[in-house]
């Protein structure tokens, strides 16, 4: 396959060529999807260096497992699942090494999200895209990994509740409750960030 062929070929063609051992075809796939894979790793890890390393590991695993890819989903979706699993493994390892976050304790001590007042004014209304991105970035960084992960899997990966439950090894009820807390907490955090910027 020539360079021109590769850049015009669709993902399925490139995957087939890669499955036959064509590294150049695989490089084209990496080039096409690397931002998406990195973004997913970054959303979950909140650390650029770790996200780069895990993206790299995901692409290496992707190459190794390529023969198992049977086209049930798009290649991009398949690769994001690879990177998500690597991030979850990494986060679980990190969790074992640190104490429970305050957010997790909050949740288990009686559902503080039920006490949080509703944020009636949209705290992100009228913001430029970059400003909005930075604020969400800050707010996501303040959530525990369980809450952030459930949010990422639902909002960015479009996973259904039952799929998230399977991925995270918890019940659907826990997923719903974590998602609810994460959204409510995020709204409060975004409102706080807005208020801080106004001061």
């Amino acid at each position, binding site marked *: 396959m020539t360079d021109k062929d590769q850049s015009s070929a669709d993902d399925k063609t490139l995957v087939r060529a890669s499955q036959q051992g064509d590294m150049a075809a695989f490089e084209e796939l990496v080039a096409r999807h690397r931002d998406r894979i990195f973004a997913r790793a970054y959303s979950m890890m909140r650390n650029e260096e770790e996200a780069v390393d895990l993206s790299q590991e995901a692409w290496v*695993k992707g190459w*190794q*497992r390529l*023969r*198992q890819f*049977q086209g*049930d989903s798009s290649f991009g979706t398949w690769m994001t699942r690879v990177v998500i699993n690597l991030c979850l493994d990494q986060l679980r390892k990190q969790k074992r090494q640190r104490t429970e976050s305050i957010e997790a304790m909050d949740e288990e001590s009686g559902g503080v999200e039920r006490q949080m007042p509703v944020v009636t004014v949209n705290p992100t209304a009228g913001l430029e895209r970059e400003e909005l991105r930075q604020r969400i970035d800050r707010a996501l960084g303040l959530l525990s990994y369980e809450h952030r992960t459930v949010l990422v899997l639902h909002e960015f990966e479009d996973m259904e509740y039952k799929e998230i439950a399977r991925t995270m090894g918890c019940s659907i009820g826990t997923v719903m409750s974590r998602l609810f807390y994460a959204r409510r907490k995020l709204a409060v955090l975004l409102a706080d960030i807005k208020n801080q910027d106004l001061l």
Partner: protein
Amino acid sequence: MRTKLTPANRLVWFPTLLVLLACVAVDAQAADAKFQVFLLWGTDDSKPPEGKAYKPVQPEIRQKLKELPLKWANWFEVNRVDFAVQQGVTKEVPISAKCQVNVKKLADSELELCLVGKGKEVVKRKQSLPKGEMLVLGGNAPNSTAWLVLLKRIE
């Protein structure tokens, strides 16, 4: 009070130890090598197919499979055979109606494994397999599942 190991003592003890180790090594060479071979089925379903009483794989094997670049969530044991092989001898081990492995013990930890499917040689491989290590052969199966032939040296 601890006895200090002087250079003179070392000259006596270490060669003695080595001689003993060498004797053990010579003895081990003559012994049979013992193996377990498993035929496994990989799937994302939590249960084996209807009508099949496959058991989930042992936790130790499940953990090792988890560390390999394999996508399937669950592994079921279809068959398991324990066998021993003498040095220089080829042991034919049927693991299903259509499939068998031929294992020949070469030297020390080395062996030659041949996977035969429907009477045809599928793969032949020479491999160093010390005690506790595993050689896993696998491939895709219908309905997005997988088969594995797992050879584990137990002695």
